[in-house]
């Protein structure tokens, strides 16, 4: 499940291609239709991963459990409804179990969160945005071996969440509301999203700051105890 970042990279490239096609070729405003395509491409790593080789049963369960925790974590913060630690949990998972796993947890939890709380044309954008943000944050942090530096993790994770997820999720509103794809109207829609995205990013940073090590240690313990997410082929 690890060390195969090219799959996610291909998926991301296809998503971008779809967005670009929508923006420049189908100029008579079919941007919306592009959503469907994005959803399709975001699923690609899933399909390829599970088709390519057998994932250990325990790895599969851990992905599922982490995604469920990411969604259920809303319940933890029921007293602080603005706090949604989904992104942070997906990033932490990716830090210790590989960016592809993080990507999958992000995509899966965002999808199910939409499934439970109502879907719409924004669903693909949010899914893609979440997978993208988590993946990029994890790649950066793992590349520079910053997993255990809580400040670095909080800053990078928070920024990725704020910038990448924010822009991707808001582009749905851009396509829907901005009357024309001109910089002025696009930026006005994006600007209205900033306060919300900023708070989302800040929350992600805070949760990462406090939970990165506690959860990370537990994930590491599982990996060591049961020999999971290692590079060798499964037994």
């Amino acid at each position: 499940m690890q060390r195969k970042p090219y799959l996610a990279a291909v998926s991301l490239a296809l998503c971008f291609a779809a967005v670009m096609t929508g923006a420049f070729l189908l100029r008579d405003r079919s941007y919306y239709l592009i959503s469907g395509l994005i959803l399709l491409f975001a699923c690609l790593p899933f399909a390829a991963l599970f088709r390519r080789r057998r994932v250990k049963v325990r790895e599969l369960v851990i992905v599922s459990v982490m995604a469920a925790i990411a969604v259920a974590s809303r319940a933890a913060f029921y007293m602080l409804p603005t706090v949604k630690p989904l992104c942070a949990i997906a990033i932490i998972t990716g830090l210790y179990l590989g960016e592809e796993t993080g990507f999958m947890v992000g995509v899966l939890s965002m999808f199910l969160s939409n499934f439970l709380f109502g879907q719409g044309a924004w669903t693909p954008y949010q899914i893609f945005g979440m997978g993208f943000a988590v993946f990029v944050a994890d790649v950066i942090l793992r590349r520079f071996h910053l997993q255990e530096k809580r400040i670095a993790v909080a800053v990078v994770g928070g920024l990725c969440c704020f910038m990448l997820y924010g822009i991707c999720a808001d582009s749905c509103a851009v396509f829907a509301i901005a009357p024309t794809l001109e910089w002025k109207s696009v930026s006005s829609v994006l600007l209205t999203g900033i306060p919300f995205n900023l708070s989302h990013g800040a929350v992600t940073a805070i949760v990462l700051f406090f939970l990165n090590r506690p959860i990370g240690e537990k994930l590491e313990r599982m990996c060591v105890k049961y020999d999971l997410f290692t590079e060798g082929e499964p037994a």
Partner: protein
Amino acid sequence: MRSAFTKSHPVLNFLFFGSVVAFGMVFFHPVFLGVSFVAALAYSVRLRGRGTLRLMRYLLPTLLVVVFLGAAFNHYGVTTLFVLPNGNRVTLEAIVHSFATGGMVLTVFLWFTCYDAVVTSDKFLHVFGRVFPTGALLISMTLRFIPLLTRRMHKIFEGQKGIGYSGSKLRNALHALSILVTWSLENAVDVSDSMKSRGYGLRGRTSYTRFLWTRRDILLCAAILALDALTVAGVIVGQTRAMYNPFISLPAITPFSYVLYVGYALLCFMPLALDLTEEHKWNRSR
């Protein structure tokens, strides 16, 4: 409520929603927009009743805001209605265009409310499972864990409170989340044992389904595909185009236009018609 469409085969549901949402996202032509909007609203009200009406209370003002913003910031168009104090023109074209944009968003939104009501998780998993069996299983498992973990979360809050752990709201929540992670990860081993002992991982996994094809499902699928083809033909000949900038221009109305309108209406109203026919038959049979 008896809903014939809800009880149809999931593939039929997906085909229908795929069609109307895709068309709904690209059509700007007022007739097509109107037909789709009315159909979506009617079906949503039938499925969700008061829920949809309550939703409309929020959506309609939003639509007006979008129209207002569109009209205030866009100054293209040839028909000036009046001039704002700052010298900007408010044009008929910009208003109509904003209306169409807002209407489109609203229509797609309404179709999604219908989708939520019709396509339950097992229907989704049936279709998705055909393509990605493992992915579908992963989703099914996660759907099982979410309520379980949510309940555990509340137990953890209670347990910690009962032995005197108290901090700020944020600290409490983070603390509880950390406990939940340990608990659930350790349980993951038992979960995978249960899967392994029932043969998970053997070659050639199949997937069980409760859904069976009926003749009606097949006929309806064929009908949807035919109507899709008709509508796409309309797109190709340019009958669905609409321009609002710089002036409003719609394609000329020909006899084929009427065929297209009727065909699109048949498509959009299909589930509602199906439901009403079945309900009528059922009432008569009593």
